[in-house]
């Protein structure tokens, strides 16, 4: 029998899980407010996937186009999300983003500048005005490094290369969690009054993804097991431009900044096919000739935006359509061309890491040649269901923020809204957790039985004589999600996928990692598989339930948006018998003012903002 009194125990008021932008920002907030805070991450500090965010952080600073305003950012976000966003979250996001960006500058971030010396902003898909504060195409690195350097002096403890296995509850509230040091393979118990999940998404469930090994849906899996709800899991974003060649880098992200800087998409007949793919909702605000698109790129403020800058769901589906019709590039993508649109110097200065990435990984010079790109699983709009103002889940003491939480982006996220999301809601989660801890005076007691169960489940994977190879099981899972729960879905494919997943669940019961417990990636992979299976099943079942096409969720058998489905979110919770429970839950209703703003035409909006400002 395992004796937990010998286990290493670490106690804090708050534990933050995950050290991407959201996690570090949340930890800074908790620590600034005087809470004893611990930050636990699977990798080394500063390596989280936030570094891969390239294009920028969206915030209505109005530095490049003074017409910008939080209301326009809010309207863009709602339209991009097909009005399925959590209205309150979208409002908070648009309102707070500018302050969060200015705060980063005060903490040492060095964004690219305008001629007046202000933070420069670039165009991006779905954003009405140039809105993305950026540093070349390495904005994520700038943000994570700034937060990291701020964080190490803030006074919270950082626990690196520690994988979190599961949460512990006492009397229905969070009281801690069990972690495993990846280096030694030994276990550690964290005692805390509250836990903030900032674990990112679950892209690793798919074969073609822009995500790294860490994105295994750990937050979804742990929250689900602890009795929290998942929301909007069917909305998985396929970024339209991932690399498609060579095979070893298939899925690696090509920033939307390429299109923001003027890049165009063409098929193998040389046609700019995005002009044929403008959805009705965006017709009035999108250029319909190459001539107008060119004027826009040259800076004409009256010209409308090129169709390449439509939202990601639209562009991804258009590329897929071209490939299906036999008009794709040699390796099954579309051509992305910046070489004919901008000078070599501009390309290298504005897109240095894209230049470098293609040069090294594909032996291709983007200043003279066209890239081949195709959709890649990039982001989860859905996630753990949280209260819009406090970020607390339905489990007392459990919070979630960043990609791990669902709601703000609705059915489709705009590029640049992720970095702002993680800053805004990282801070709010810190505030929410602070308030909760203030009101929660009772000391936390740990239930040793839960700890023992968690540890035994983990060690069984090593101790079995024989069993399934975790790497191969992961590969099978990726095949299922890629083929059956991909960018275009049908009832029969989804049913087939769910059946295959149940077969994989059975295999998972006998998964076996070879070797000892010290730094054993096979074991870590096996431990993450449970979370990936929960995540995959949640996506597949939610996608089957939602009988419409909206944003990133495309059902060929239900091709259009259905007003009836706008009224409901699909919410997932673990049933008492261990099966996955799904229900339709009424969608958050907006206040009248928010509804009015979101539905204004752009002309009405612009004149309203002008009026407002002239009164000041």
């Amino acid at each position, binding site marked *: 029998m395992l004796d937990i009194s010998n286990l290493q125990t670490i106690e804090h008021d708050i534990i933050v899980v995950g050290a991407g932008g959201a996690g570090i920002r949340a930890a800074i907030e908790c620590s600034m407010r005087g809470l004893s805070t611990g930050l636990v991450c699977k990798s080394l*500090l500063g390596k989280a996937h936030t570094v*891969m965010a390239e294009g920028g952080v969206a915030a209505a600073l109005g530095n490049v186009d003074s017409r910008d305003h939080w209301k326009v950012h809010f309207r863009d976000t709602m339209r991009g999300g097909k009005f399925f966003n959590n209205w309150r979250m979208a409002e908070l996001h648009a309102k707070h983003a500018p302050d969060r960006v200015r705060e980063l500058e*005060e903490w*040492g971030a060095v964004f690219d500048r305008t001629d007046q010396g202000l*933070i420069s902003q670039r165009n991006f898909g779905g954003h009405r005005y140039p809105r993305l504060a950026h540093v070349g195409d390495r904005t994520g690195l700038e943000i994570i490094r700034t937060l990291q350097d701020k964080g190490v002096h803030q006074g919270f403890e950082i626990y*690196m290369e520690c994988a979190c296995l599961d949460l512990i509850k006492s009397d229905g509230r969070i009281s801690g969690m069990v972690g495993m040091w990846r280096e030694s393979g030994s276990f550690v118990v964290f005692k805390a009054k509250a836990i903030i999940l900032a674990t990112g998404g679950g892209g690793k469930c798919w074969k073609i993804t822009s995500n790294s090994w860490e994105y295994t849906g750990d937050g979804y899996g742990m929250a689900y097991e602890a009795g929290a709800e998942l929301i909007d899991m069917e909305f998985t974003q396929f970024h339209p431009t991932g690399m498609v060649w060579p095979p070893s880098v298939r899925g690696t992200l090509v920033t939307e900044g390429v299109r923001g800087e003027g890049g165009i998409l063409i098929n193998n007949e040389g046609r700019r096919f995005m002009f044929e793919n403008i959805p009705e909702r965006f017709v009035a605000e999108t250029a319909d000739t190459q001539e107008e698109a060119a004027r826009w790129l040259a800076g004409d403020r009256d010209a409308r935006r090129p169709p390449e800058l439509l939202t990601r769901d639209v562009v991804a589906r258009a590329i897929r359509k071209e490939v299906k019709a036999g008009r794709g590039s040699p390796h099954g993508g579309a051509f992305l061309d910046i070489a004919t649109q901008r000078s070599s110097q501009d390309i290298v200065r504005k897109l240095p890491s894209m230049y470098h990435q293609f040069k*090294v990984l594909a032996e291709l010079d983007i200043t003279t040649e066209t890239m081949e790109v195709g959709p890649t699983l990039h982001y989860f709009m859905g996630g753990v269901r949280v209260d819009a103002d406090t970020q607390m889940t339905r489990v007392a003491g459990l919070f979630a923020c960043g990609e791990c939480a669902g709601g703000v982006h609705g059915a489709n996220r705009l590029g640049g809204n992720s970095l702002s999301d993680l800053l805004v809601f990282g801070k709010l989660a810190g505030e929410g957790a602070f308030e909760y801890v203030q009101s929660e005076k009772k000391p936390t007691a740990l239930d040793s039985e839960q700890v023992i169960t968690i540890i035994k489940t983990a060690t069984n994977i090593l101790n079995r004589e024989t069993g399934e190879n975790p790497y191969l099981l992961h590969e099978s899972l990726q095949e299922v999600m890629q083929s059956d729960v991909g960018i275009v879905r049908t009832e029969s494919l989804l049913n087939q996928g769910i059946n295959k997943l149940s077969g994989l669940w059975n295999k998972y019961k006998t998964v076996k990692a*070879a070797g000892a417990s010290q730094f054993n990636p096979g074991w870590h992979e096996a431990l993450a598989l449970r979370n990936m299976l929960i995540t995959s099943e949640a996506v597949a079942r939610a996608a089957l339930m939602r009988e419409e096409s909206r944003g990133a969720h495309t059902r060929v058998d239900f091709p259009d948006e259905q007003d009836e489905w706008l009224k409901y979110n699909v919410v997932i919770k673990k049933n008492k018998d261990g099966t996955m429970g799904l229900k339709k839950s009424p969608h958050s209703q907006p206040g009248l003012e928010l509804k009015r703003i979101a539905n204004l035409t752009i002309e009405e909006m612009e004149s309203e903002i002008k009026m407002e400002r002239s009164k000041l």
Partner: protein
Amino acid sequence: MFRGDKTSGEMVNYKIDIDKGMVVLDVIHKIQAEQAGDLAVRWNCKAGKCGSCSVEINGKPKLSCMTRMNEYSDDETIYVRPIKTFPTIKDLVTDVSWNYDQNKKITPFSPHLKNKDKNGNYRMMQEDVDRVQEFRKCIECYLCQNVCHVLRDHDRKDRFIGPRFLIRLASLDMHPLDSVDRVPSVKDSFGSGMCNITRCCTDVCPEHIQLTDNGIIPLKERVVDRYYDPIKLLFRKLFRRNKPLRGA
């Protein structure tokens, strides 16, 4: 491939079929999946942006995700070892925690608040931040720390902070908004004098940052100006114009 831990280890031979376009990290992953499930390696982004997968390939410090297999000939044996300057934990994974300790010693950025306008904005011109941005491209792969002979051969981790953190100091020193004087710490705590400009760090930087010429040399000049320039010393003695020293 090196297999072993801090106490012992050996080079183990793996034979594997490779596909077009593979990088060394792909090969490591394939070996992991097919032949050695417990092979330890660090990696994250697989696109040269996070700096996790630093190893020594045929003796050269490199990011394994950005090293293509076709750089080597078909019949060549490729040797992959952990970076040498930091203690091995297991296989290709090393203990780089010393670097995190060094970063913590640097006095954080602290802007002059008076430079903030009424809308909460600071102004900096692009040409004044180009150099700072060059240093901020650093992905903390620690390849420069690994090849720096002060750290690698002389093991003076007790006195020298290494090229990575000298350029971090330089980026703070050149930041138009910063208010802290770090020159005394550059000289005394961080050992800028120990670097004798062999430029090995610049050679291995995967981000092509000009560490030596643009960062370390100007920083050393600042120290020389402050402490070893006799005319300036006299000038300061007479007029006491030097600003009070803040921070470490």
